[in-house]
């Protein structure tokens, strides 16, 4: 999942790579296609195909278990969606969740990455522990945190009682606490990947510059601003963008923690669309929701990336 770093770096190293001559490449491309085919066919059938099929479905009245044939209904699904306040509530929660998870995830991961980049003694332990959230099935992460949040037998309330901070509460079913409680779990689960990506970026920053800046008397913060951050920036940009998408599309965690409750306070758009499609059988309508989700997220991301890239040119 540290994809961001590698694309970043491989892009940078491209010019130095070996480039075979033009005619030679044409001949090799023929052989290359032969190597590509076994992967290409399943990809086309099971990922590109369904994507296009899904977009098409959004313009139909497809339902599950119906005998009447599916019909094209134009943009009717989308017109319905515009007036579907439940969906927009869910969408708002989805954005809150995605931002609420992505931002702390990045800040905490950056802190941890900076620490791990130092010569500290318990580094190995942190690295070992970071495996846990990363390797765990999302369902188990959800179950585990339910145990932590559990009102009577949970460790959170017990700790609060011990510290004299009140009697604690039922975190996951409280209207006000459910979403923040779920967001904490999201941050916990996604931190290791982000940390590893950032750490790789850090180890890529020029050490000589660091030393030179230190000799010139630059403090830690100054060195971070002028040396570390410019080098880290592309990695930070890609990993936050990816995290945002992953978080917006996340499903299993919240499904296990709250199933969207209480009163829809944590019903992420993915959960909403899942219920619409597989509980109520409204395939066409759910596909339209998917299209809207993709469109809005793409626009947000495009704005974020363009804004950030511009900002980079200014400074």
């Amino acid at each position, binding site marked *: 999942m*540290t*994809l961001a770093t*590698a694309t970043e*770096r*491989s892009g940078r190293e491209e010019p130095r*790579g070996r*480039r075979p001559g033009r005619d030679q*490449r044409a001949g*090799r491309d023929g*052989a*290359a*296609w032969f*190597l*590509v085919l076994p*992967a*290409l066919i*399943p990809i086309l059938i099971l*990922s590109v*195909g369904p994507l296009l099929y*899904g977009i098409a479905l959004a313009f139909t009245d*497809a339902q599950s278990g119906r005998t009447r044939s599916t019909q094209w209904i134009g943009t009717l699904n989308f017109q319905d969606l515009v007036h579907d306040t439940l969906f927009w509530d869910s969408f708002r929660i989805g954005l809150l969740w995605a931002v609420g998870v992505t931002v702390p995830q990045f800040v905490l991961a950056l*802190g*941890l990455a900076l*620490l791990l980049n*130092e010569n*500290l003694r*318990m580094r190995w332990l942190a690295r*070992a*522990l*970071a495996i*846990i959230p990363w*390797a*765990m*099935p*999302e*369902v*188990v992460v959800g*179950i*585990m*945190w*339910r*145990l932590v949040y*559990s009102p*009577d*037998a949970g460790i959170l309330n017990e700790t609060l009682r011990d510290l004299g901070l009140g009697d604690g509460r039922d975190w996951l*079913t409280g209207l006000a606490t459910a979403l923040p409680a779920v967001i904490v779990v999201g941050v*916990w689960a996604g931190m290791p990947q982000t940390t*590893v990506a950032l750490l790789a970026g850090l180890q890529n920053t020029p050490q000589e510059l660091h030393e030179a800046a*230190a000799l010139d008397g630059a403090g*830690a913060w100054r060195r971070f601003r002028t040396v570390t951050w410019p080098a880290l920036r592309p990695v930070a940009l890609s990993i936050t963008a*990816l995290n945002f998408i992953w978080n917006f599309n996340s*499903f299993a965690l919240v*499904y296990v923690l709250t199933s969207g409750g209480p009163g829809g306070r944590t019903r992420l758009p993915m959960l909403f*669309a899942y219920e619409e499609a*597989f509980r109520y059988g409204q*395939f066409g309508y759910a596909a339209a929701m*998917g299209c809207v*989700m*993709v469109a809005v*997220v793409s626009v947000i991301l495009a704005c974020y990336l363009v804004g950030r890239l511009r900002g980079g040119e200014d400074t």
Partner: protein
Amino acid sequence: MSLRTGRPARAGQYAALLCYLVFLAFPFLWLVSTAFKPARELGSLHPTWIPERPTLDNFRQAFDEQPLLQAAGNSLVAASAAALIAVLVATPLAYATARHRGRLASAATGWVVVSQAFPFVLVIIPLFLILKNLHLINSLWGLILVYVVWSLPFALWMLAGYVRAVPPELEEAAAVDGAGKLRTLVSVTAPLLAPGIVATALFAFITAWNEFFFALVLLKTPEKQTLPVVLTHFLGAEGVADLGPLAAAAFLATLPSLVLFAVIQRRITGGMTAGAVKS
């Protein structure tokens, strides 16, 4: 590495690191603690970190309540088959994209990035309909197909990195010595690539073993379902029913992923970032 870090700053760093360690570790420790607690302690109003009378009852009860063994078997079949097929399919493609830069390579990279942003909602309904037409709903084979495609981008990306780490000069030297293309691939490239292929397969295995959403949608009957889906049955309709068995089952389900991940961690965190892009 660090330059002239003062003593107070060091202390601050250790304090911060300690906070991270606690934050990362405590939920898991609590899961383990709960898994080994007898029912009486679980019902107590003042739960303790260390069970006073550790017991294996929860594990026994977990196996009685849900078909865990069968589910683990299903998960094992689905994850192994998916990992194996994904690696078989992805290795040639990775080789092609790594060795022949050009349109093909950039198209592959582009697809890897786009696929990371893949909207599951939009894909799952068509996949469901397609697999239904093929009579592959509620079948492990349908799920395996989906997992293969789903893990391909990442497998491709990891493998391409490992291929790039094999110096082309070695292959050229073999060619100069008169080895044919196939001979070079089999006796020079493949052995050097083997550890990378194993790491990729294990990673694909873990991903599939952990996967929940597709399994939830595509598998209907309990005897076909994979471990993560069966785990959610412990939750029941009314929220948490039985904490002990739930914790025990969750703990067991995590062990394979944790062990395998620990095995390949160095490759994942190191290889994916450093070795993966050496050209």
